[in-house]
């Protein structure tokens, strides 16, 4: 499964990309809206994980631009952002129009929840190492007690 991770903070991008790769995902990282468009143009992702807060062009601009291309209208997008839900005035119609498959508040979203969300959206068969996912899940559960 090809994931386009749009994350401007490099150390965070490295952590999230490393996690997604342990699940067998092929991860492309983009730091900005412009570079994300270029990356998507080269190889259409199966899913996008998007931080809204970015320099120059923010994630909303990316969303509208991305969705204006017909070949990209069905690519699911997970908002994974520093902006809390109550600060983000998105109604149902906008969520649907922009094809937002899920909203995750980044500070409180664990790696496991991110993985589970992606899995629910794209389907388990698309995660190449579902066994790894379950093993990690069990291991993490055991360690955190959650």
């Amino acid at each position, binding site marked *: 499964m090809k994931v386009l991770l749009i994350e401007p903070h490099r150390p965070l991008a490295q952590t999230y990309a490393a996690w997604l790769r342990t699940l067998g995902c092929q991860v492309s990282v983009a730091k900005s809206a412009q570079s994300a*468009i270029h990356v998507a*143009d080269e190889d259409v992702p199966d899913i996008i994980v998007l931080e809204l807060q970015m320099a120059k*062009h*923010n994630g*909303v*601009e990316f969303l509208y631009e991305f969705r*204006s291309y*017909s070949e990209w209208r069905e690519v699911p997008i997970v908002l994974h952002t520093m902006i809390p839900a109550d*600060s983000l005035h998105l109604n149902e119609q906008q969520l649907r129009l922009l094809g937002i498959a899920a909203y995750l508040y980044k500070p409180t979203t664990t790696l496991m929840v991110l993985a589970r969300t992606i899995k629910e959206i794209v389907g388990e068969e698309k995660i190449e190492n579902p066994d790894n996912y379950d093993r990690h899940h069990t291991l993490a559960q055991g360690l955190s007690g959650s």
Partner: protein
Amino acid sequence: MKTQIITTGIILSRKDFQEADRLLSILTPDHGKIKTIAKGVRRPNSKLAGGIELFSVNHITFLPGRGDFATLVSTRMESHFGSIVQDINRTMLGYEVLKRINRITEDAAGEEYFNLLRATLGGLDDFDVSAELVELWFTMQLLFMTGHAPNLKTDSEGNRLMPGEAYLFDFDEMSFRQQQGGPYGANHIKLMRLGYGADDPTVLKHVTGANEVAAGVLKLAKNILKLHVRV
């Protein structure tokens, strides 16, 4: 030989068109809304603000076409409402405004819509006025321009609206109805009048207490718009 037309315009929407082109809807003050094909801009470096920024007023040159579409020859940014994209919610509101104007100008677009859009974007660009007040002003202006402004002078019985009274809004009569304990009072009505009468949304930042009642007034105005204008 076709004559090039030079004017100013604000881009309302961009979408793909054939393999290498983009279709831009541009609102102008003197040529209404034009649909133009920007040739060859669909590939990488031009995507996303490849010289054609949204939330900006641009000098544009275009060649009128035989059919529905003109051909964009060149653009140059005249002014850019760059602060809008520094706030996610203002960005979203900006796109909503563009979308509404795009819909409402399907059939005809006079200069007043261009001025409304430019003033609204200017308001969103000014962080001293809340996005809510800008949206309220925009909504009230749209209601006025489409002939669906509510009655802000008299109530549904024909009596003057009174400062100490409470009101409900009657959507059929498009006026306020006196009601004890009703959600709307003098401040709500005053703010609607200002939204209706102010030339520019930035005027509202000077109104004391406007932010406190803005949410309720905006909700009402948007409900009226949804019911009567459907944009």
